[in-house]
């Protein structure tokens, strides 16, 4: 028994970097699935007379996944802490508008616009966090409520696309460095920051603690309410960053940018696809990145095969449920 334990400890130490990166096994599973899917994609593209690894396709996959990826990172933080954020989609719409209207086509206004977007999104996150902690409203209802409130503001203030993004800011959405899109680098930066936050900072440790068991965290001296507010603020800020990216892509703000993209439920789907437990306390950003890439590669294959959107929904639904069923099974047998 002791012998076994020691062996395991040695193994754990050696695999420690990977273990830190993935935090647990489903993250590995999602990368395995991603690798298989890429091979399948390559095969299908080749049979169909296309090139999977063409510049356009690779950049396309990055461009399609960057905004969702950034939102999903924020969503990961909230879910790890045992919450949920359904307000991100409307918040993204709002922030594209805030960004585009303040920029008003002038490059000089970009810093002010970015600051305003971050401030607005942080404020929304703060409100979400306060409703959840102070008013003790379940995150599902709290964020659904703020989503409705933001929607009301959008409906009342905007009739369609508004504002304009200067050419200088569009580099964010369109430029690439070799085969890497700038938007994807932004996503990577957000992901690495979140990874550092979770694995190397006190707040990160406390996020896992609060999501694992709020009462235990509290009794251990963690100020759980502050942690909950912090994750909501961070999640909303991620949504704000995604809003900036979308504004740059779209050249303007639109009141439907977030909802058309379905960023609320899709980001949650990407997070759980990456192996993070919906109940909190287990998982990490590495899995989420894998989950988002999985969805993006799937989309790219759908595009090449010209699958119609209804069949896509069926496949996405099946993939989501099947993946979760497999995780649940692995966890039980492990």
């Amino acid at each position: 028994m002791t012998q076994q334990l020691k062996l395991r400890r040695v193994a754990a130490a050696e695999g420690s970097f990977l273990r830190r990166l993935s935090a647990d096994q489903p993250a590995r599973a999602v990368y395995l699935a991603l690798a298989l899917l890429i091979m399948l994609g390559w095969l299908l593209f080749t049979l169909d007379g296309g090139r999977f690894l063409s510049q356009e396709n690779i950049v396309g996959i990055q461009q399609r996944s960057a905004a969702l990826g950034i939102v999903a990172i924020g969503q990961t933080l909230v879910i790890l802490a045992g919450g949920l954020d359904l307000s991100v989609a409307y918040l993204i719409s709002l922030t594209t508008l805030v960004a585009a209207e303040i920029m008003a086509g002038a490059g000089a206004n970009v810093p002010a616009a970015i600051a305003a977007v971050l401030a607005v999104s942080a404020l929304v996150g703060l409100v979400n966090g306060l409703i959840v902690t102070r008013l003790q409203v379940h995150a599902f209802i709290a964020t659904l409520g703020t989503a409705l409130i933001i929607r009301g503001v959008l409906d009342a203030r905007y009739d369609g696309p508004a504002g304009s993004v200067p050419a200088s800011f569009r580099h964010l959405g369109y430029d690439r460095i070799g085969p890497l899109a700038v938007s994807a680098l932004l996503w990577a930066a957000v992901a690495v920051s979140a990874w550092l936050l979770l694995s190397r900072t006190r707040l990160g440790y406390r996020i896992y603690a609060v999501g694992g068991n709020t009462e235990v965290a509290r009794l251990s001296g963690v100020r759980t309410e502050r942690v909950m507010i912090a994750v909501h603020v961070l999640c909303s800020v991620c949504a704000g960053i995604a809003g900036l990216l979308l504004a740059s892509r779209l050249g303007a703000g639109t009141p439907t940018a977030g909802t058309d993209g379905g960023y609320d439920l899709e980001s949650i789907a990407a997070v759980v696809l990456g192996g993070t437990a919906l109940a909190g306390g287990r998982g990490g950003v590495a899995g989420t990145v894998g989950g988002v890439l999985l969805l993006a590669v799937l989309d790219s294959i759908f595009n090449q095969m010209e699958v119609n959107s209804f069949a896509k929904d069926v496949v996405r639904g099946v993939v989501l449920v099947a993946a979760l069923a497999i995780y649940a099974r692995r966890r039980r047998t492990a």
Partner: protein
Amino acid sequence: MTGIGKSFLGVRVLDGVDLEAAAGEVHAVVGENGAGKSTLMKILAGVHAPDEGTIEIDGRSVAFGHPIEAQRAGVAIIYQELTLLPERTVAENVFLGREPVRRGLVDRAAMESATGELLSSLGEESFGPRDLVRRLSVAQQQVVEIAKALSLNARIVVMDEPTAALADHEVGLLYTLVRRLTERGIAVLYVSHRLREIFDLAHRITVLKDGARVATAEASSLDVATLIRLMVGRELDSYYPPRAADPPGEVMVSVRGGGNARLRGIDLDLRAGEIVGVAGLQGSGRTELAKALFGAEPFTTGEMTPCRPRSVREGIAAGIGLVTEDRKAEGILPHQRVRDNALLVARAIRRSAGTPAIERLLRRVRLNPPRPAQEIRLLSGGNQQKVVLAKWMTVAPRVLLLDEPTRGVDVGAKAAIHELMRELARDGMAVLMISSELPELIGMSDRIVVMRDGGIAGELPSGSTEESVMRLAAAS
């Protein structure tokens, strides 16, 4: 602590309680369930804020708004229930809320080496700081819990029923630990229901009753009987009710060669009218035995008559009931009324019991006061346990399995439960009782089955000594 008062939902839980502890002293706090011990400790730990009264440490008045503030003031607490995160490592749990940082980032290396030192100072070698808590046994987790309290370098350590999850030989380790703490000049506040531990360890004893302090006295000036009288307010003439005079009746359940992933070669007969005690260390398979007999974690091999249940429902159909060890997680429906809790089994197997029957039953299990419309979470642990017993009595099982039936139950309720067990046996039920408390096992059982490593190590007649039980349980 002076004049501490506290109310919950309009109910006065503490009323003007004073308590003091000196450096290097073990000060025991005792009282029945509902006497306010845990609340008092939680106020000291900053979990609850007192409605009135003051707390002074080293003569300085303090007020804690949050557990972290109490920690910083040098108060550490080991809770009755484990407060660990299963998905995190040992080191992460030990330093939860106080992670060491270097240049803004958590210093994992420092954290892990400090945890390693703490563990070896506790003589723990079976696991390390990087292991996930989820993979540890309950006893190992208790060690982590203690390491966590030690890591605070606290000047006051509160232990709220620290031995609840420990087997007797592990309790010995804890004693050593407590003494080591006092040698360092730390004040230990020790809350327990186990009177023997209190007399073993405590220098002074404070007795609480109904939220008020009844007495504080030198341990040497008290004996068990006096202490019980102080706690209960009356003399308990005999600690355990007398055994039945009749010899046991027919065999109700019989197992031959029963085994599964955690059990092997179980041979066991339970007869009508007898109380069979089960002893064994933590992890010896006691709980697993009960769950296998009941069908919750079924036997996969061997014979069992009248039938070998493969599920809970088959177990219930065969006339078997199980009162689980972890009442909060596996026993009660916290937000349901007493009545609905009591009717749960009957409803689950579609057998209805009318209202008068329930009220009679609640009186029979000595629920006091018998208010069937009250939410069960508002009851004391002892009363909750009585409702759980009533739940099984609605379906009149032939065999009742009780896993630690008096854990976390105050002295009065404990006596009531013991009486009820006797009564049930007298009425022809076969009762199996698992307990970590040897006096209880010896006092209540007609014979004692001792478990070790998933098998039955031997059987002892009633009237055996604690030493003989321990010898069987711990032999390797």
